[in-house]
């Protein structure tokens, strides 16, 4: 029984460490492939400040007055240009 648990421990080490290495190796492959794929097909114009897309509809009921005021301001600004 005591020898038995030792064997269990060795087994756990072999299969565990093996899985960790295999899994992370696959992750290296997958990540490298993903980066290559994204870089080739979906390249961003880099180094631009990150643009945060405004959520289409936030959970909140926005302040409509604010929206109106801002809309007007943007409008005027564009016309003045």
């Amino acid at each position: 029984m005591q020898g038995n648990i030792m064997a269990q421990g060795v087994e756990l080490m072999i299969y565990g460490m093996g899985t960790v290495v295999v899994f992370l190796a696959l992750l290296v492959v997958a990540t490298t492939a993903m980066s290559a794929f994204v870089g080739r097909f979906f390249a961003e114009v880099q180094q631009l400040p990150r643009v945060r897309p405004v959520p289409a509809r936030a959970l909140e009921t926005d302040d409509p007055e604010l929206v109106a005021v801002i809309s007007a301001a943007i409008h005027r600004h564009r016309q003045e240009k």
Partner: protein
Amino acid sequence: MDNLITLWSASGLAQMTFGQAFMMLIGLGLLFLAIRKGFEPLLLVPIGFGGILANIPGAGLAYSAVENAVQGADPAQIVELTRLLGIVAVDSSKELLAAYAAVDSATHLAIHQWALDAGFGNGMLYNFYTVSIASGVAPLVIFMGVGAMTDFGPLLANPKTLFLGAAAQFGIFATVLGAVGLTSVGLMDFSIADAAAIGIIGGADGPTAIYVSSILAPDLLGAIAVAAYSYMALVPMIQPPIMRALTTEAERKIEMVQLRPVSRREKIVFPLVLLILVALLLPDAAPLLGMFCFGNLMKECGVVDRLSDTAQNALINITTIFLGLSVGSKLVADKFLDINTLGILGLGIVAFAIGTASGVLIAKLMNRFGSTPLNPLIGSAGVSAVPMAARVSNKVGLEANPHNFLLMHAMGPNVAGVIGSAVAAGVMISLVGG
């Protein structure tokens, strides 16, 4: 007069055991380390305080209704309990509780109802533990928050550093071997599940250690969590001598090439790649790594910032408070004061040391056979202990070469170590759990 006796016999002084007093000192010691020495205070302050609360004599804060009833019930009620358990009378509370642990769920329920009817209830900390840890939710929520705080940029810029995160997990499995070795020579008494839970200390990742222990070895959770967080705080003392011993001055001076910039889209896609890989290969790691990837996706996708902010602040803080107090409930004297606890504390530091050494040695190997220069000092960051281990790599590197900033390079293996130990956790739960 009766009231005076009631009050006195209900007081702590009348009921205090030596173990409880000792554990309260341990709790104060943890608070001292956390507050004065800055040992992982976010966890060790709640854990230490919870440890003191758990050991208040007579309050039973860390016990279930059944445990409180077994200690406090009158002889007639105990007779009823033995009838429910289907056993003949036993000598001690300990045997009663062992018999209780062995019965099926229906009997558990019946005995819980017996305890309620006898006027006993769950202690406050026991309830916290049940809701936050036994359910598994608190470590997962913290892992989600950690995911929302993690930047995979350095890892994506240099994915090979994932191998360093894998190598450092050898500390975990070497410790498993140590634990079963101590058991097989008769010094300790750990089951294989216990050994696995102890090994995870070497993962140097608090929520992972607590999650695994809560599944594989709940009785050892207190000691494991205390060891994990204490040794994480000690990383700046444990790692440098090992790192210096295993590297030459020339190796420590190696400068690494600047990391390439990583695009936002790569960062968004990476947690999904990791999730899919987990789904295909290791479903038992899905709760941990799933929540981690979810947190990271919320952070990187840029369209749910209010959720990401909450995951990184209010939610993780609330969870940390209750997780810490709940871990503290496992510092109750009659569970913590055990020769096995000493074994856990000893094995834990071995785990950190072996993990550090493995990381450095594999980094040396990769440097020798790789095409680009790789400073072996970043290998030690593979144990996780984010971001402390990466800072240690940076600091030791600066000692050898004052112009050598390794911090960014070490962040790659550092977060890889988080993934690595979560994978190790999944394997262990899969192989020895359930």
